[in-house]
């Protein structure tokens, strides 16, 4: 079900918001025990909200496009009075006294619940969550990707019309690719970070997870824009993308970089990618070769910068003012953090601390910042000659869960997405095909700063001329009876 369709149905009273919400809640009840996408299901609040919306419709009042739409929020986005755990033991009982700006901007929609993530958004599989491991709706034995695994699984399985995730190195796009949905990371600063648990302040962004490119545009419109509570938010008012959605790709210059199609790319992924490029070419786009010579350094640079910022951003979790507190110990802070943080979080904090200490600051951190500058300038040079850059979103499709993988190999899941964050650029992953196992393959569309409109035009054109996004994952075969 897409946003515009639901909006029409609600306005024409073809279905009441309460009934719609109850349907979604029923599906969640049926499917989530297998899927494990939800940390908190806000059943009562959702129904209350739905009843309010129905009253409004009955009074004949104006309805916003997202009003009454059932949705979910990643559990690192503060919601006042509702548990927001960051999928960590250290916050298992933390209820924020305020809501994130993005949550407030979506207050007209119906919040179904808070969805799962890798602990503190650190991971690429949603396996590091303290609560549960979310499954991939296309194959329950596989991971949905991470860290926004709950968001994408819920949307892919039809348990949420849209969701908000967060992306620091690929955490919206990579899982979106693994689960065959649209995942968008906006230009740095376009969407407010106030109320979103910081991982790396200079890289984090919140973005929509949806089934279609059009829905992504609607949600992004609703959440973007200057926020006086976030000093890094851009001085931008409202932006609408209707025109972008109506345009086609004739004359669009699309850049392809060999550096974003490395040897390690799975052959089927490469195939799907090439087919996608050909399709866009046939629709009138001009394919241009671009060079991004420093892309291969992205992973290393990211690891240093993101881990350093994370180590500092997670220092506030000491159990003194909130969060689980270890009892009767000599050093309360050490014990709280030792008991409260998972392995991956500890690993990154330790590495981040290491890179900042003494001589290492110059050796690692300052160097990483310099190389980041090179990556930024690579993109700037490329965008002088093209409107969008295309790449596969990931090297391979969703892998099996429970695989004991070395951290540095896990990081490869983000190889193609990371450079985008380092440059503060917008990028979107859309479904562009399936492999022989029936697993989704993602196409990444990258644009220059504030070039979201170009991404929407390209992605939307692609979806109009393909039907991949109409396919449904296996898990909801049973759920179809509830009118999904």
């Amino acid at each position: 079900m897409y946003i515009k369709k639901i909006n029409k149905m609600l306005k024409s009273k073809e279905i009441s918001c309460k009934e719609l919400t109850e349907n979604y809640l029923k599906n969640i009840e049926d499917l989530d025990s297998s899927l494990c996408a939800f940390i908190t299901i806000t059943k009562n609040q959702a129904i209350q909200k739905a009843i309010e919306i129905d009253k409004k419709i009955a009074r004949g009042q104006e309805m916003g496009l997202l009003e009454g739409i059932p949705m979910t929020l990643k559990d690192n986005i503060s919601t006042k009075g509702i548990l927001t755990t960051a999928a960590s033991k250290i916050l298992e009982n933390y209820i924020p006294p305020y809501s994130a700006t993005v949550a407030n901007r979506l207050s007209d929609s119906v919040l179904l619940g808070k969805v799962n993530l890798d602990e503190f958004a650190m991971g690429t599989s949603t396996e590091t969550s303290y609560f549960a491991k979310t499954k991939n709706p296309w194959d329950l034995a596989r991971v949905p990707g991470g860290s926004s695994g709950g968001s994408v699984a819920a949307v892919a399985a039809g348990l949420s019309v849209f969701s908000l995730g967060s992306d620091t190195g690929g955490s919206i796009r990579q899982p979106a690719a693994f689960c065959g949905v649209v995942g968008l990371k906006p230009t740095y600063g376009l969407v407010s970070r106030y109320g979103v648990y910081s991982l790396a302040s200079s890289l984090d962004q919140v973005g929509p997870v949806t089934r279609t490119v059009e829905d992504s545009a609607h949600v992004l419109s609703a959440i973007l824009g200057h926020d006086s509570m976030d000093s890094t938010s851009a001085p931008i008012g409202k932006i609408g993308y209707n025109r972008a959605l109506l345009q086609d790709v004739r004359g669009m210059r699309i850049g392809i970089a060999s550096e974003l199609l490395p040897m390690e790319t799975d052959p089927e992924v490469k195939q799907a990618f090439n087919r996608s490029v050909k399709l866009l070419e046939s629709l009138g786009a001009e394919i241009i070769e671009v060079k991004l010579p420093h892309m291969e350094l992205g992973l290393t640079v990211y690891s240093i910068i993101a881990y350093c910022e994370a180590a500092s951003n997670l220092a506030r979790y000491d159990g003194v003012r909130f969060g689980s507190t270890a009892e009767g110990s000599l050093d309360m802070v050490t014990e709280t953090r030792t008991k409260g943080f998972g392995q991956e979080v500890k690993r990154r904090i330790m590495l981040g601390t290491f890179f900042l200490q003494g001589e290492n600051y110059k050796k690692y951190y300052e160097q990483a910042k310099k190389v980041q500058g090179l990556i930024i300038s690579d993109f700037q040079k490329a965008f002088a000659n093209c409107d969008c850059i295309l790449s596969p979103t990931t090297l391979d499709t969703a892998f099996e869960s429970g695989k004991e993988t070395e951290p540095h190999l896990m990081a490869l899941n983000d190889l193609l997405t990371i450079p985008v964050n380092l440059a503060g650029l917008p990028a979107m992953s859309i479904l562009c095909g399936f492999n022989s196992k029936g697993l989704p393959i993602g196409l990444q569309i990258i644009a220059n700063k504030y070039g979201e409109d170009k991404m929407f035009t390209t992605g939307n054109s692609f979806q109009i001329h393909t039907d991949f996004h109409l396919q449904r994952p296996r898990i909801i075969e049973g759920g179809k009876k509830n009118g999904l």
Partner: protein
Amino acid sequence: MDYKPAIGLEIHVELLTKTKIFCGCKTQFGAQPNSQLCPVCLGLPGALPVLNEKVVELAVMTGLLLNSQINYSSGFDRKNYFYPDLVKGYQITQYYSPLAQGGYLDIDQEGTAKRIRINRVHMEEDAGKSIHLSGETLLDYNRSGVPLMEIVTEPDFQNGEEVVKFLYKLREKLVHANISDCKLEEGSLRVDVNISLASEGEPLGKKTEIKNINSFKNIEKAIICEIKRQKSLLKYGDEIREQTLGFNDKENSLIIMRDKEITNDYMYFPEYDLPQLQLEPDYIEIVRSNLPRDIDETKEELFQLGIPENQVDQILKSKKMLQYFYKVYANYKDAKKIVNLLFGDFAKLSNEKRISIEDIALPPQYIAELLTLTNQGKISNVAMKKVLKHMLDNQEQCPNPNDLIEKLNLEQTLGKDEIREIVFKVLRDNEVAVNDYQKGKEKAFKYLMGLIMRDTKGKADPQVVRSILKDNLDK
């Protein structure tokens, strides 16, 4: 071996802003614990800092007052360390690129000016307050996020006396410009003293840091103590360890608080939640034009008006007093008389009513009017005191002195003839005193004056009485 001390200061000043440096919470001192908080200054997950413009303005003003170079571009950094009163596990400060650098303040050393160089002026946030009791520590986060300004001097001081002179002068400037109230006792002024010794031509020795001194007097004492201690260590060939010391004023001794040989690594790196601060030259000029007149200039002007030094110092202690003085002076041009009234009778009456002289609510024109009437001889000094008291007693109604004089019948209404009559009567009745005066006893004059003034019931101008009496006695 002759060792010369090199003393430098790290001064923290709490800025007089209504709200905190990164959020809209109040900065009021003495509020209920943990009552001035929000997600930002409590460091809740997801909270972000937003810079308070007023803080920048006050910091720029300070830089200008200290003749520093204001950096058009400055940035914020994180100082990372764990402590329960540091809510985020890091303090937002300006380490790599401070707001202002360089500058100086001259102090008066026996007639000549000694220049104390400033190293930097930067902005940062305060931490919460830890109150240590036996067995537990209480945390009050009201102070978390209060705006601080750090002023660092070069090690140009040679003794405690210079340091105290500097601090008085700095405080005077900052109070006068409404930048801070600089109260050492309340913590809105904090001074860390760094001391090291060096012999002629040699580089500076290891430095020690003295913190938490609660009065200017004790700062001077502590410095004397520490120089002595270091000198004695060096004399016996012992090494000086880099330590943080506290001062026990009762025992006049220093206590070791921390050994700094193992220095903390604060892992400073840029604060990405705040963009680089860019200041336009125009902005700095506007701030400069809003600076109050230089306090030394004001001092000079007050001296020129004939006000003695100790009273000048008194007026300058309070901005309100200074403004009030000028307002009265606008209508009555005898500065000395004004100041005498304000710090004399007025202060006395205020004390009786337990009102602070700073909280004067009487219109300055009325004070000027009172002084004018007294000067013209329309009312006596005694009468003026009566009027003042009435005015203070009835502050809300704001009575006009002229009305009061009429109402209380205080006018010195006696004309010369009436006065002459009274003088004749008194002289007639006090032949002994008259003879004493003619024999040369000056005291007798005073005695006779007293009797006459009493009989006139305050309605006679004493100057007129005096001249009439003298005329008659000299006949």
